[in-house]
């Protein structure tokens, strides 16, 4: 209802549309308030992750010790062959797969196909949980090799603190996302939103969060693991 009111004046596009949207003395953004709030939250989260990554950049520039080679530190030996970064690559593909299932869940939500939405969201959450599991494995491996926040056997001491801080905070986001997705999925299934006018925007809002987690991983993968 409120969306319809918000949208009735939204005809102009381009820069003229921007001026119109901001000067209407009404809701500025032509989206449900929950979605606008999620976007603003994600914007703030963007700054948090940027600060971590920029912090990592500056300690990596400032150190006089050689930086440990991620390609070797994160290599795994499978069937006698050492494959560089293989677990990280698998984790990347898992997260992309989960992003795809989430995008489909959002689409099915708008089609009011509750059953498909539920199962796609559960699939997304399961993939997310397996991502966290692999990260736990990665942490265990590195800790057993002597990587600590204050030092490690491979090179610059700042490697450990950057690694644990960045991947830890991201893993926390994935874990929170898994819980969030499951809550919404079960509400979709048991008809919670049918009682509220059959509006499934919430699936899209949850999807925004999930895609953001994938987005952050794209940057971590590029800057921490590949650089």
């Amino acid at each position, binding site marked *: 209802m409120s*969306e319809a009111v918000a*949208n009735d004046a*939204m005809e102009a*596009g*381009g820069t003229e*549309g*921007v001026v119109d*949207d*901001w000067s209407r003395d009404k809701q500025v*953004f*032509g*989206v449900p308030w929950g979605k*606008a709030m999620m*976007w*603003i939250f*994600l*914007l703030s989260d*963007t*700054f948090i992750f*940027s600060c971590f990554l*920029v*912090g990592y*950049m*500056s300690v*990596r*520039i*400032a*150190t*006089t*010790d050689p930086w440990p080679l991620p*390609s070797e530190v994160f290599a795994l030996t499978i069937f006698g062959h050492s494959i*560089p*970064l293989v677990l990280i*690559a698998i984790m*990347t593909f898992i997260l*992309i797969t989960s*992003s*795809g299932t*989430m*995008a*489909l869940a*959002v*689409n099915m939500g*708008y089609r009011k196909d509750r059953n498909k939405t539920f199962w796609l969201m559960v699939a997304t959450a399961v993939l997310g949980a397996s991502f966290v599991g692999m990260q736990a494995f990665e942490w265990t491996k590195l800790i057993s090799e002597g990587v600590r926040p*204050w*030092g490690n056997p491979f090179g610059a*001491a700042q490697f450990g603190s950057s690694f644990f801080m960045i991947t830890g905070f991201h893993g926390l986001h994935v874990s929170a996302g898994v819980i969030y997705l499951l809550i919404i999925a079960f509400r979709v299934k048991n008809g919670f939103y049918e009682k509220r006018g059959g509006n*499934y925007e919430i699936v899209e809002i949850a*999807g*925004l969060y999930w*895609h953001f987690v*994938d*987005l952050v991983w*794209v*940057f971590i*993968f*590029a800057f921490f*693991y*590949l*650089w």
Partner: protein
Amino acid sequence: MAAEGQQHPLKVYYLVWLLLFVVSFFSYMVDYLHLQGTLRWTLILVFMFVKAGFIVAIFMHMQWERLALKIAILGPPVAILVLIWLMSLEGIYIEDTRLEYYGDSTMEPETPHH
């Protein structure tokens, strides 16, 4: 449009999904093939921005939002470029200072607890 929510043909999602897989594979190949130097960094950044762009534009539906929302959300992160610039200057300065006062890293005494 926006009143009925973001509904788009499934084909778009499948296409972007496939593309993300292919580009991720390419960026993994950058490491696997041991590319070095400017080529490596350029490819890493190009693949990263392609992936990020498709996720934001298609999966997060930003492409179909109004310009007012696009500017409000995508504009502020540009400020991060200033932070990157300042912190890289700072990092270089600290490294120079360390080299000047502590000399080569191999001569530096172990200081595990700062």
